[in-house]
């Protein structure tokens, strides 16, 4: 093995990006960790050291469990719909029957992804409006008056209404990723299956699903991580209400820090969010290494 001479040039090229990463990612991360041991507000210039007090509060905070549970609900529903349903959708769109209309439908499904989430949230505020909203009017129209609901005002339905909007918004994106994956599957596999007399459902489970395994895996992780970080949807649609019923971790963190002016405890909450996503990212790295066989 030949020993390479140290070359300064690559280091210089990397420096700007390292500097930016340091300033905007790593230093704030460390600072956040440091801040979580203090009690301070934006107004006061003094920080009081409180040791592990913030972490103790975390255990006593009822909102944290509500918020975490909401994040988990978010993740489960998103995985089922965004990964499960999107895969089915992609398979249908790639079917010969839909050959003609597929490009058009792809645009239709992808359209919501291109609308800013803030706009979508405001829009769904109208859809869910109990009096003149689209959803209740529709239920009335098809004779399902008794299903009418004060969607965002009822603590039982608020979080699900928020999640539903999120699914509508992102399913197109995941579908598109699956379409790309399905298109890479060799045609021969399907042809062989046709000769063997396999039906469409059989082909889906025996060819499509195993062949896009990697994509399923990546999409699942993206969706779960996204669910842990979700902020805009509940913040704009319900602001975490009524009560705390639709609060998620990041909304709780934001309100603790910037509304209730309790920066130290907000930093502690931020650590929890960071740990959750970091663990997920580690799992992703670990597992994706094992899946390199194709």
């Amino acid at each position: 093995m030949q020993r390479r001479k140290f070359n300064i040039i690559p280091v210089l090229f990397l420096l700007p990006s390292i500097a930016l990463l340091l300033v905007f990612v790593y230093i704030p991360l460390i600072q956040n960790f440091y801040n979580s041991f203090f009690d301070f507000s934006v107004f006061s210039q003094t920080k009081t050291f409180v040791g592990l007090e913030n972490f103790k509060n975390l255990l006593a905070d009822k909102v944290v469990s509500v918020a975490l549970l909401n994040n988990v609900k978010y993740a489960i529903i998103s995985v089922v719909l965004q990964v499960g349903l999107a895969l089915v959708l992609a398979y249908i769109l790639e079917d010969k029957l839909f050959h003609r209309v597929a490009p058009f439908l792809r645009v239709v499904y992808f359209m919501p992804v291109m609308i800013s989430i803030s706009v979508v949230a405001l829009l769904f505020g109208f859809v869910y409006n109990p009096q003149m909203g689209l959803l209740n009017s529709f239920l009335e129209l098809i004779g399902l008056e008794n299903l009418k609901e004060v969607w965002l005002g009822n603590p039982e339905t608020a979080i699900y209404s928020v999640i539903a909007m999120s699914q509508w918004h992102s399913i197109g994106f995941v579908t598109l990723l699956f379409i790309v994956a399905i298109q890479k599957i060799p045609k021969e596999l399907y042809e062989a299956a046709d000769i063997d007399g396999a039906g469409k459902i059989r082909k889906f489970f025996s060819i499509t699903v195993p062949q896009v395994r990697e994509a399923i895996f990546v999409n699942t992780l993206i969706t779960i991580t996204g669910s842990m970080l979700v902020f805009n949807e509940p913040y704009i649609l319900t602001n975490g209400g009524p009560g705390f019923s639709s609060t998620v971790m990041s909304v709780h963190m934001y309100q603790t820090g910037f509304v209730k002016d309790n920066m130290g405890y907000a930093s502690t909450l931020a650590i929890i969010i960071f740990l959750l996503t970091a663990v997920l990212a580690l799992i992703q790295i670990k597992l994706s290494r094992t899946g390199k066989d194709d």
Partner: protein
Amino acid sequence: MKRFLAIFMTVLLLALTACSSSAGNEEKKSSDKDVVEINFFHRWPNEPRKSFYDQKIKEFEEANPGVKINVNSVLNDSYKEKIRVLVSNDDLPDIFSSWSDSFAENLVSSGRIMELDNILAEDSEWAGKVIESQFAGFTFDEKKYGVPFTVDGKAFFYNKEAFKKNNLEVPKTYKEFIAVLDKLQDAGYETPLVEGLTNAWAISHYMGTIFQRVVDPAVTAKDYNVETGEFTDPGYIKGLEIFKELTDYMGDLSTAIDHEAARNMFASGEAPIVYMQFAEVKMVEDEGMKDFGFFDFPEIEGGKGDSKALTGAPEGWMLSKNAPKEAVDFLKFLTSEETAYDFTKTDGQLNAVQGAVDEGNTSPARLEAYELVTNASATTPWFDNAVNINIADIFMRGGQTLANEQTTPEDIMKEVQAEAKRLKK
């Protein structure tokens, strides 16, 4: 080539770091000895107030040739953030706008705000014109730190036509008020009273007024202070029960809409009563609703509070501790009767300067509101400004869940008491 690249990258890096430092440097002030510069910061980059203040600055500069005013403005929420940053270092503008009570108190606690008592005492002709009761929200430790300018208050707006049709009188007591709501409900109004409960502050406005009517002022004064707050008075539970009773008239709908939607329901005649700020009168008028009146939150039977006090807080002006005396002159100019009169004429919002609101510059409805404000025995600040935000948040969130029947007033108070204890430490 490699050498060149290396140099190039170094230059790029230097440029990157240089950028950040040069942005922080302020331009050197061209200090022509005779010209005094005043930095003026307000929160209305939107019309009509922006043009109004630009015009007034021009007038002031013409009348005072030695003064130059640098103006800057950002909108509401950004203003709150920016002023927080400015107050934590020495860049605080000489004169700027501020809300009252806890917002003002936070600014004052920085120690960078000018005490105005001497200035007010020196020029009693000017100071005497400002309605005295409005100073309360800018007074801390018996020292005045701000001059109130715009005034506001909260009252029930009612649809006069709906009242006439159902032979209803303006209620004087809470019992009468409930009777009125019952009759309106019987007359076919699905929501005789409406509110956008998704806006937490709207809930806090209700609670502030109710507590003010029900609980002894000495008790609230003690409880609203973080250092002494306990919230053990049974009046709070009664207050929450009253709030709960009122939400029953608001229907399921109110838990899912915001205040703006509620206001529009009132303006369209769909809901006959709504609890609103006088600052909203013009918006209702612009929506086409003309035939409406107001009444203050009625007296609650058996309440220990002041039944004539009005909920509402002014906004005003503050000076930096280091402001030159020309800034004081500018403050006087901004709060003079003349400026105030023009202000209400242009903008519609009422002001705290005596003689500056009359038929000439405001509508009859707003004049009626003005009388309510000026005749109030005392003003109670907005509840979310009056108490620590952590306490207010429990009440506001609690109000939402109370409307949904997911909690009880007793549980809310238990939570509040625990939080009060935690904050006292």
